[in-house]
């Protein structure tokens, strides 16, 4: 069942990757990045149990925090860094 979870997480990762590649707007890509970060956290947690050593959960928590801070930083940047964005065309 851990294997099922890992497989599902990797499938979700690929779907998010596809969205990040296709995503017509900047925000779609940031959303995909966020989903990807959450999936990485889950992957680490499940991998710990799959290999029988759930000691790396601290890292999973750090990734969760990092993911959040990263998204907020990117958003702050997209708000204040003024770029004429060619991508907003829907």
């Amino acid at each position, binding site marked *: *069942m851990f294997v099922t979870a890992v497989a*599902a997480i990797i499938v979700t990762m690929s779907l998010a990757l596809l969205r990040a590649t296709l995503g017509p707007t900047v925000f779609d890509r940031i959303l995909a990045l966020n*989903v990807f970060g*959450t999936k990485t956290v889950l992957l680490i947690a499940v991998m710990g149990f799959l290999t029988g050593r759930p000691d790396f959960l601290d890292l999973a928590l750090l990734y969760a925090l990092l993911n959040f801070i990263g998204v907020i930083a990117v*958003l702050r940047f997209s708000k204040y860094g003024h770029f004429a964005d060619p991508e907003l065309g829907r």
Partner: protein
Amino acid sequence: MEWFVNIVSGLCLVIGSLFAVIGGLGVLRLPDFYTRMHGAGITDTMGAGLILVGLMFQGGFSLVTVKLLMILCVLLTTSPTASHALAKSALHFGLEPRVVEKEAGS
């Protein structure tokens, strides 16, 4: 007792995985940015939640379970905040949501 815990945690893991994949599908299939956020919401709440709860059953009464619980708490508090910030900056950036009818309420 052992097999019961195993079955419950396996169920949680499998259903959580199912929801994670469905959420990923939603992120891919839904038509515009604001609707895609709902797909991401599914993976963040039900997907992550159930998978972590399933792992907690495996962890038993130990520090591992406490850590998993904390990861869950952090995910559940940060993900809506990040989503809100993302949606708000998209709105202020000028990305109009597609709606079936303007101003249904108010």
